[in-house]
């Protein structure tokens, strides 16, 4: 049965989409506003979708609750910025409306907005592989998958019906029929054939502010590339004078001191590609972020590695230089002189601050490779 509600729901989505389109720049630059939810949904807060009313503000918020607790004990977190959120009434700060849109949808909006061309992949078609997920409950199954709680609830129900449950002796003994087991189904999952390798300078001159820029930018890069490839691998390399491969969390949260040797990161990257990502099979994307400092003597080695192996192997090699009060910004010029601004695979971009992310993404991904 087709409900009329579908029309209203799609109308609502159109309006939401319109809102996002209008304000995309705002969301791109405030990437941290986007709470990542699960694997394929993001939630975007849209405070203005409320029909405005005259209503009480922040100092009227509060209510009456029930339970234990001393006076002064916090019971719920408030919204730090206050304005535009929460409702007077018996509810504690009601959250702003968050609209979940799928990453695909978000990428489509991003693509429309930045006019990004679709990417021509190379390599073999994707191979799908089955993956097991536990989704339901059955009456038969191996003991190792027995659902304890459900089994006992069934047994309790049966005993109550039979009248064998005694208040004085409340023992519940499951029979064979009461047992319940978890059950699974197979879900086909695509095998990744694209990989993004992120490299970042974590030497002392890169502060948290710069890292935030990198984090926001890589979120949008991920989002776009995910929409282009069914599966996507991500690898992270950090370096100061020496480099190593790390996980995502470490990547964004490490701060080292000491010198900077970019070639060390290139070397780890080379090894990684050699060991795991055959360029014939994989679409390789390298993104390097730094404040532009490098140890002078190292430039020659770094350029050689770029030219001989990294650039030929990759679909794209992107260098993003985040402006920092401490960095010299030298490396951008070195690359520019060596390869020129219009290189096929090497793309250079200077990111001044958060506002610059938008243009930087456009530059990186605008070629459709």
């Amino acid at each position, binding site marked *: 049965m087709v409900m009329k509600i579908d*029309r209203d729901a799609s109308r609502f989505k159109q309006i939401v989409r319109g809102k996002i389109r209008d304000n995309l720049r705002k969301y791109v630059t405030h990437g941290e506003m986007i709470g990542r939810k699960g694997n394929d949904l993001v939630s975007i807060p849209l405070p203005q979708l409320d029909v405005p*009313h005259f209503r009480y503000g922040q*100092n009227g918020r509060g209510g*009456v*609750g029930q339970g234990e*607790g001393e*006076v002064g004990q916090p019971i719920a977190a408030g919204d730090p910025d206050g304005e*535009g959120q929460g409702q007077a009434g018996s*509810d504690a700060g009601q959250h702003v409306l968050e609209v979940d849109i799928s990453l695909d949808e978000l990428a489509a909006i991003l693509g429309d907005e930045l006019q990004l061309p679709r990417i021509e992949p190379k390599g073999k078609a994707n191979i799908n592989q089955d993956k097991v997920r536990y989704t339901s409950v059955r009456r038969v199954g191996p003991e190792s998958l027995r659902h304890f709680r459900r089994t006992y609830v069934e047994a309790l129900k049966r005993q109550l019906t039979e009248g064998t449950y005694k208040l004085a002796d409340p023992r519940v003994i499951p029979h064979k029929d009461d047992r319940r087991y978890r059950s699974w189904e197979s879900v086909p999952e695509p095998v990744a054939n694209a990989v993004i390798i992120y490299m970042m300078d974590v030497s002392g001159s890169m502060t948290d502010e710069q890292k935030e820029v990198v984090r926001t930018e890589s979120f949008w890069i991920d989002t776009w590339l995910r929409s282009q490839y069914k599966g996507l691998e991500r690898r992270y390399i950090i370096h100061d004078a020496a480099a190593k491969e790390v996980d995502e969390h470490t990547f964004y949260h490490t701060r080292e001191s000491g010198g900077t040797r970019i070639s060390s990161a290139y070397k780890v990257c080379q090894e990684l590609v050699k060991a795991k990502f055959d360029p014939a099979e994989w679409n390789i994307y390298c993104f390097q972020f730094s404040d532009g400092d490098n140890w002078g003597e190292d430039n020659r080695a770094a350029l050689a590695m770029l030219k001989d192996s990294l650039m030929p192997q990759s679909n794209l090699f992107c260098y993003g230089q985040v402006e920092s009060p401490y960095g010299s910004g030298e490396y951008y010029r070195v690359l520019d002189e060596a390869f020129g601004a219009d290189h096929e695979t090497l793309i250079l971009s200077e990111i001044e601050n958060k506002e610059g992310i938008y243009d930087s993404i456009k530059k990186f991904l605008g070629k459709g490779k």
Partner: protein
Amino acid sequence: MTALHRFRSLTSEMADIQRQMEEHARRYGLDFFNTIFEVVDHDQLSAVAAYGGFPTRYPHWRFGMEYEQLAKGYSYGLQKIYELVINNDPCYAYLLASNAVTDHKLVMAHVYGHCDFFKNNAWFAHTSRKMIDEMANHGNRIRDYMDRFGVEEVESFIDACLSVEDLIDLHAPHIKRRDEKNQYHFTDATEVEEEPTATRFQSKRYMDSFINPRAALEHELAQKKKELEKKEQLPSEPQRDVMLFLLEHAPLKPWQVDVLSIVRDEAYYFAPQAQTKIMNEGWATYWHSTIMTRHGMADSDLVCYADHCAGTLAGSRTRLNPYKLGVELYRDIEDRWNRGAFGDEFDACDDYLAKRDWDKQLGQGRQKIFEVRRIHNDLTFIDSYLTLDFCRQHKLFSFGFNEDSGYYEIESREFDKVKQRLLFNLTNVGRPIIYLKDANYKNRGELFLEHRFSGVELQSNYAQDTLVNLYRLWKRPVHIETNLEESSVTLSFDGKEHSRSGDTKKQGAKG
């Protein structure tokens, strides 16, 4: 009405259950309209609930938004609607098809509680009992306007109307605020208003200055002029029902007047439901638990019943559960009136044990709660029956937002403060009280509203956006007087920009 009949009706097993439950309910003295049950799946139920219970309602994006949230909440297992009842004659109740049999029993008993409440509570007395037909009618009219004037045009006008939908007079259905306009009363054209003159008594000339003293004449004249001015002022008294005023006086096209009146009618229809949330849910819960525990339940239902009750009656620290508070208050009242634990004698007694064991064998409990459900709304219900003992027993506390810590914190467990907070949240359904004061402000046809400040400020960004929508209806500058940062200010919108005037205190403090 066709839309309703696409749903499934009851199976014979469920029809049996329904007959049983109806019989139990009637035996307890519940009095309700004929009730029709429809069985729907969760998607349909989410859709119907999004429309506020009326599948034939006019199209609008906010119903879609509501639906998305309900449907998502259900599929993520965050929330579940078991049932939905519509205040109408006959009552319509929607049941979730996937409910277990025990749930159906419980829900049906619950539904009869709601139906009785709709029919008998005084606050519902003036609601339309043919709302299903009216809503369908509203829907058709708005769809027709959308066809003629464009979806965007009509929908965005509805948005503007919704912005002021809470500016109605909740008590208006029960009070005669002004004489009905008599359409057959024609004023005589010759009955022109004369210039006011002071009353002169007959006197001899030499006595005139004593019999008609000049000061008295002037005073009377001034008085008369003032009254005349008041008559000319629009509205003559500050008015709560801003929507009505706009309907009668705003420069709107005929279709816009109709849309505004639709939004207003629906606001009045739904208002009593917001005013009696605690009482209505409490009453329905009281009856489903009474009927289920005494008659309705088979042994095999117990676990499911207990599970259900644990879910719906769970207390929360950040939100007062209306089901829980309502049912407990009814039970408390029933107990007190059974024991005779009320009145001056009881209140004057300060012996804890004597009060606890107080029992005059009065047995008026049941009778009393029927009376309570007839005459009260949530505000008066809490005001009259929330007692110190109840507050302690149920561990109620008030909480508020602490700006320094950014957390909601427990403020107090003192009875007075808890009750005060609760009453504040229920006053005018938790919305600020706003009057329309002048429709010819500054003698320029501008609209002037007044927020009766009661200690809590308006949220200024919302207030500004509301003014923008109000401007779209009035089409002249709009103002609202309120208090912000402890001084009286007037927020204005003139069609282009917002302004704020009058907060001299603040500037003075800064300078």
